[in-house]
């Protein structure tokens, strides 16, 4: 049996959870989805309706409203004996928790898998995606994080399983989430958007990202950024696409004023179609772009926006 630990906001599943369930389906076996939250009935119900899910497990407690890695790992280790595989999305959520579970179970963790070869063999990128390693786990249990872009999302409907309650272990009390400052946006989520427009150092300042917003509105696109743009303070950290930021693979990725450092390419080179706009004809981004346009982005963006009508 396989346990998928859901990333959710208590009312709905985050999209990466569906990709993680899809990876579980590739491994094969009965799939249970664990929802650790507070007043998370809606999220648990959603988990029980995902195609291929045999059961949703709900652990409800006030300290799971903003869970710490410590509390989720303790919960997961408690239910672990029944499972051969424990999967989490390779998002900030999953990366924080999964190694803690693996260490408590004394097993290796397989990070960021992009393919399942068999129940014990997986493919994962290393060196910022410049090599793909096929690794086999000799441990009795496998703790795995799943790169969402490697697996097509499982259908969110079609399942009709039950929601069981599991007891939430008490909070250790040694770590506490004091608060979150979340970037508010009406745009699609960066990691699941069909179209992503990213700006780099070439945007020159944060104010200029407004130009991208107009364009993004026309295309219903999410907005991302290179590390350089985030480091320079143009936009918040959650915009960052790259090896150490978010990994995206939309149908269309438009890189504007981004030179194309290896660590940025690692986060977007699996996009279906890549457009690059940069004034430097030698910028490495052009080597992987399907459509490269050399020129001044401050002239080109308004033209593009106008062309899209």
């Amino acid at each position, binding site marked *: 049996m396989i346990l998928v630990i859901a990333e959710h906001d208590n009312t709905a599943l985050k999209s990466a959870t569906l990709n993680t369930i899809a990876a579980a389906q590739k491994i094969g076996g009965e799939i249970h989805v664990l929802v650790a939250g507070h007043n998370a009935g809606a999220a648990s119900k959603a988990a029980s309706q995902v195609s291929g899910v045999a059961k949703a497990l709900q652990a409800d407690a006030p300290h799971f409203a903003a869970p710490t890695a410590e509390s989720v790992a303790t919960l997961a280790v408690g239910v672990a004996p029944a499972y051969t595989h424990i999967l989490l999305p390779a998002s900030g959520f999953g990366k924080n928790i999964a190694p803690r579970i693996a260490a408590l179970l004394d097993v290796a963790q397989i990070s960021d898998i992009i393919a399942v070869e068999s129940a014990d063999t997986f493919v994962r990128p290393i060196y910022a995606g410049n090599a793909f390693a096929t690794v086999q786990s*000799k441990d009795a249990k496998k703790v795995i994080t799943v790169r969402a872009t490697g697996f097509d999302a499982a259908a969110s409907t079609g399942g009709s399983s039950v929601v069981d309650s599991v007891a939430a272990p008490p909070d250790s009390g040694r770590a506490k989430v004091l608060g979150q400052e979340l970037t508010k946006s009406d745009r699609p989520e960066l990691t699941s958007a069909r179209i992503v427009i990213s700006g780099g150092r070439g945007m020159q300042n944060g104010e200029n990202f407004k130009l991208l917003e107009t364009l993004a509105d026309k295309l219903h696109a999410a907005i991302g950024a290179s590390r350089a743009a985030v480091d320079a303070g143009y936009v918040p950290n959650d915009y960052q696409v790259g090896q*150490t930021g978010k990994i995206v693979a939309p149908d269309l990725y438009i890189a504007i004023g981004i030179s194309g450092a290896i660590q940025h390419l690692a986060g977007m080179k699996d996009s279906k179609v890549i457009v690059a706009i940069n004034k430097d004809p030698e910028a490495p981004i052009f*080597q992987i772009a399907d459509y*490269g346009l050399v020129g001044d982005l401050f002239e080109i963006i308004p033209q593009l926006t106008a062309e899209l009508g």
Partner: protein
Amino acid sequence: MKVLVAIKRVVDFNVKVRVKADGSGVDTANVKMSMNPFDEIAVEEAVRLKEKGVATEIVAVSCGVAACQETLRTALAIGADRAILVETDVELQPLAVAKLLKAIAVKEAPKLVIMGKQAIDDDANQTGQMLAALLDWPQATFASKVDIADNTATVKREIDGGLETLAMALPAVITTDLRLNEPRYATLPNIMKAKKKPLDIVKPDALGVDVSPRLKTLKVVEPPKRKGGGRVADAKELVAKLRNEAKIIP
């Protein structure tokens, strides 16, 4: 307060790695090696804690081959007080490193362990969390700001939706994200001084840790090459191509 900083020697971030022809791994012979950039941020943060009077001693630890001594000397030049190398030629995986670091932490009893959130070679992003679990300490991963007062670390963490503020009781483990600080360069006098700072070497056996790998690498291949290089003349042609050729926008 004693701070332990864990650092890893990796292929320099500027090197474009090449996959070996026999598919057994990537070629690391004769390539430039450096301290993992995230660990450099960890060393810098520890040094800043010392400069603020919060930390009293900084111990840098690395696990791996004898050449890791160079990496430890770099940490000493940035400002660590002494160093420990857990020396082995065995391929170390994150769980083994976490167990070695646990053994060192039990011996040294630091209040805080800081390390990079991931190493840029295996991109695993595991060791800090594993160490915290093995020690049964709280953790704050992906830190972009650290404040320490009254035996509590208050850490701003980079999460997918923005930032999270976490408070945890010490002792604890912190892993660093990119924006925590900008590491300083080691000055020549400090590099000279670092040569005289103590560097102890221990073996995994002496720490009672089994470091044998749990994951077996069956093969390493190059990722599929992307065919790029297409050009368009202007915004008008770009939109036309996206509409009619790629058929990706209406």
